[in-house]
């Protein structure tokens, strides 16, 4: 299936959705002017992936900052994966940089809403796990 590979900018994250290599990653900053335009194709991709998913899916978030409009669409991303949980073993890997408690707490709020297992990883400035 087609691979999504988007390079990050100062207001949009880098995104990799690669079924064959099992890489599902959203990383960086997200404060686009039009969240629907940016995330629409990603949501569609997840829908298509659901037709024939891998046995295991680890969706990784390495977010530095996201605005409230993005937070709503990121919930949509999580809910899309939640829909697939009977077809693939979905795990959410929620990474946050040290001292970024607000980002960690945002992950916990998502965990309260969606029925998916979350794993939290504290990382250094360059997103290496500690």
């Amino acid at each position, binding site marked *: 299936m087609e691979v999504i590979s988007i390079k990050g900018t*100062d207001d949009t994250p880098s995104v990799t959705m690669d079924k064959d290599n099992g890489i599902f990653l959203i990383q960086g900053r997200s404060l686009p002017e039009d969240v*629907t335009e940016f995330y629409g194709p990603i949501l569609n991709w997840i829908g298509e992936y659901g037709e024939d998913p891998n046995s295991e899916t680890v969706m990784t978030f390495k977010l530095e900052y996201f605005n409230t409009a993005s937070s709503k669409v990121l919930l949509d991303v999580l809910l899309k994966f939640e829909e697939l949980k009977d077809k693939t073993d979905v795990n959410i890997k929620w990474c946050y940089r040290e001292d970024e408690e607000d980002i960690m707490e945002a992950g916990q709020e998502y965990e309260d809403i969606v029925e998916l297992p979350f794993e939290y990883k504290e990382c250094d400035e360059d997103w290496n796990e500690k």
Partner: protein
Amino acid sequence: MARIAANQDFLEFAYQLYHTMQANEINLVYEGVVTQEITKTFTAMTEKNMVKAEESNQVQRKVFNVMVECLQNISKHADPMTDDDDEERRGIVLVSHGEESYNVITGNVVKRSKREGLEKSLEHINSLDKEGLSALYKQQIKEGHISEKGGAGLGFIDIAKKSGNKIDYQFKDLTDDLCFFILITTISRN
């Protein structure tokens, strides 16, 4: 002669502005159209200043966060002074800092008919503690939708959550239909 006098007034104004900014430790003042480009530029400028001032990562992130929400509020929700709804959204932006806190102050024109709704929502948010804000945020993110303007209805809740302080605000009547809405957010430095 008139021109020289006008120039003199302008110089006086510029000097007063400089003096007031210095005295009140104001880092940024702007009046004009607020776009995504302006939002990115101002947040980047403020970030740079905070790095220079060796501000903690957490405070930097909170100020950045509040600025983005306040500026995107203007670019999405400010009402124009005229009936032309396509007119670009404008407002004022002021960022200052003192020993104990950063202040982000924004102001924009809104229809007087929106005032009651804004007051109600801000009063409700100000009445909540951290857990209450988190519960309201989760409720709104589940039930809300991205509006035509591209907002999620979460901005004020997020500003209150991230700043950890009550949101201060004021309305000043401009005309029979319009008022000026001022929003003051304080982010503690410790």
